């Protein structure tokens, strides 16, 4: 299920529309992840405040979206573009890759809320495939 030329075009076009709200998207997606999938909180025991929209959540949501932006820019070779991030996740963060799917789902939910007309089924399938590819690239170095 690799990205076709049509998928890449759709992702780039859609991302151009939504990138202005990247920090809001990241903040809301991460907030939902922590609330709806409470087991994910185990990765953030070092934060003072895990509540939706809190300062550390907003900041980290922004960081994550920066990585997604990088993936969009590297869409022709996501593995190469995300090499450093893959090593970070593999050797330092050691986030279980199941969580990439959880966060991806919540990013899609937030996109549906913020862009109900633009996030049509064609944009949805392209973004779902793209986020899955990002998850795979991040898991590359795990073993």
């Amino acid at each position, binding site marked *: 299920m690799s990205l076709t030329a049509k998928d890449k075009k759709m992702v780039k076009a859609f991302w151009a529309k939504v990138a202005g709200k990247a920090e809001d998207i990241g903040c809301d997606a991460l907030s939902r992840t922590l609330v709806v999938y409470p087991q994910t909180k185990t990765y953030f025991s070092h934060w003072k405040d895990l509540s939706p929209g809190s300062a550390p959540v907003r900041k980290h949501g922004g960081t994550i979206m920066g990585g997604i932006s990088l993936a969009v820019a590297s869409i022709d070779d996501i593995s190469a573009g995300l090499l450093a991030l893959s090593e970070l996740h593999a050797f330092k963060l050691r986030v279980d890759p199941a969580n990439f799917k959880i966060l991806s*789902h919540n990013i899609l*939910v937030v996109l549906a*809320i913020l862009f109900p007309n633009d996030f049509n089924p064609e944009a949805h399938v392209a973004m779902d495939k793209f986020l899955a590819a990002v998850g795979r690239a991040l898991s590359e170095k795990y073993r």
Partner: protein
Amino acid sequence: MVQWTDFERATIQSVFEKMDYDDVGPAALSRCLVVYPWTQRYFGNFGNLYNAAAIQGNPMVAAHGKTVLHGLDRAVKNMDDIKATYAELSVLHSEKLRVDPDNFRLLADCLTIVVAARMGAAFTADVQGAFQKFLAVVVSSLGKQYH
């Protein structure tokens, strides 16, 4: 038995009360057929499913989407025994329709996205949690009679 908090019960009733089943059902099913194209395997006699536009305009898809959503209503009205409520439907999906139960999860995900789009900011994280828990119980119940 599944334990529901007062918030979860109230949320599920409220979300479904406000929902236009005849809009959400077709939107969710057609989205599922586009986003997860292998699900089209169950709809060989539905005619033109060739591309997203064809799927979204297909009257048989729309009709079936409404059927599915109205079927969900039974669980909304029987939250304390969804498993028994869906026993017969589970047998139907397993023995007659032969639907891989993983598809229920895929449709549930698409339904979540469609409801999020319709509700906007009112689809808060807590509402999402309640809605996804409800759908997880529905999905599990529909898979119960497979053997």
